[in-house]
């Protein structure tokens, strides 16, 4: 089972460049998320989506954009990369929360991005 697949695994960007981090899931999950993880800081939510065509900001959305045209794909766009965006990025998906209200998220392997 593929689960959540992220590409690329590693990337070095120069300041001011742009790129798209790709994320696809094959579990037919409605919910998808983008997190960033900085050393010692835990994971911070960037953007999330509750279904195709619906996206919303998380805790740290500045400098990023997302789109959700299909259930499977949730790309993250970085415009005008800055050193502060150096981080490890994780995409995740989950089913819609059930009757008890919670649903576990499944994570990809991450994209390690360095902006120089």
């Amino acid at each position: 089972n593929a689960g959540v697949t992220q590409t690329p695994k590693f990337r070095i960007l120069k300041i001011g460049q742009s790129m798209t981090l790709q994320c696809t899931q094959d579990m037919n999950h409605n919910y998808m998320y983008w997190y960033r993880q900085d050393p010692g800081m835990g994971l911070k939510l960037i953007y999330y989506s509750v279904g195709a065509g619906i996206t919303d900001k998380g805790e740290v959305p500045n400098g990023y954009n997302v789109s959700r045209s299909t259930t499977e794909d949730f790309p993250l766009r970085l415009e005008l990369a800055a050193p502060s965006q150096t981080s490890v990025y994780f995409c995740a998906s989950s089913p819609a929360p059930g009757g008890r209200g919670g649903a576990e998220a499944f994570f990809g392997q991450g994209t390690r991005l360095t902006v120089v």
Partner: protein
Amino acid sequence: EDQVTQSPEALRLQEGESSSLNCSYTVSGLRGLFWYRQDPGKGPEFLFTLYSAGEEKEKERLKATLTKKESFLHITAPKPEDSATYLCAVQAGVATDSWGKLQFGAGTQVVVTP
């Protein structure tokens, strides 16, 4: 403001030396508390979900418990392969489209030596 705090930041154990990790939270409308394991260079891997105070879940040498203000992850007789960072996360909120969002603590890095 919602907060999730994990302690200690790091824990070094001898093989077989049992211990506990703490996750304290202050959120409105808890929907679920989750424990994840993260190995270096990998994404978080789901371990447990707890929904209400008094609930317990077990998996091999790990046992998670939940009270109204905190959760504990007990590691019994750990082995070197239990070395990892353990992350606690909560889902909370009233609006249905916020239920899925996970808010994470900073994690506890556990090292188990032979």
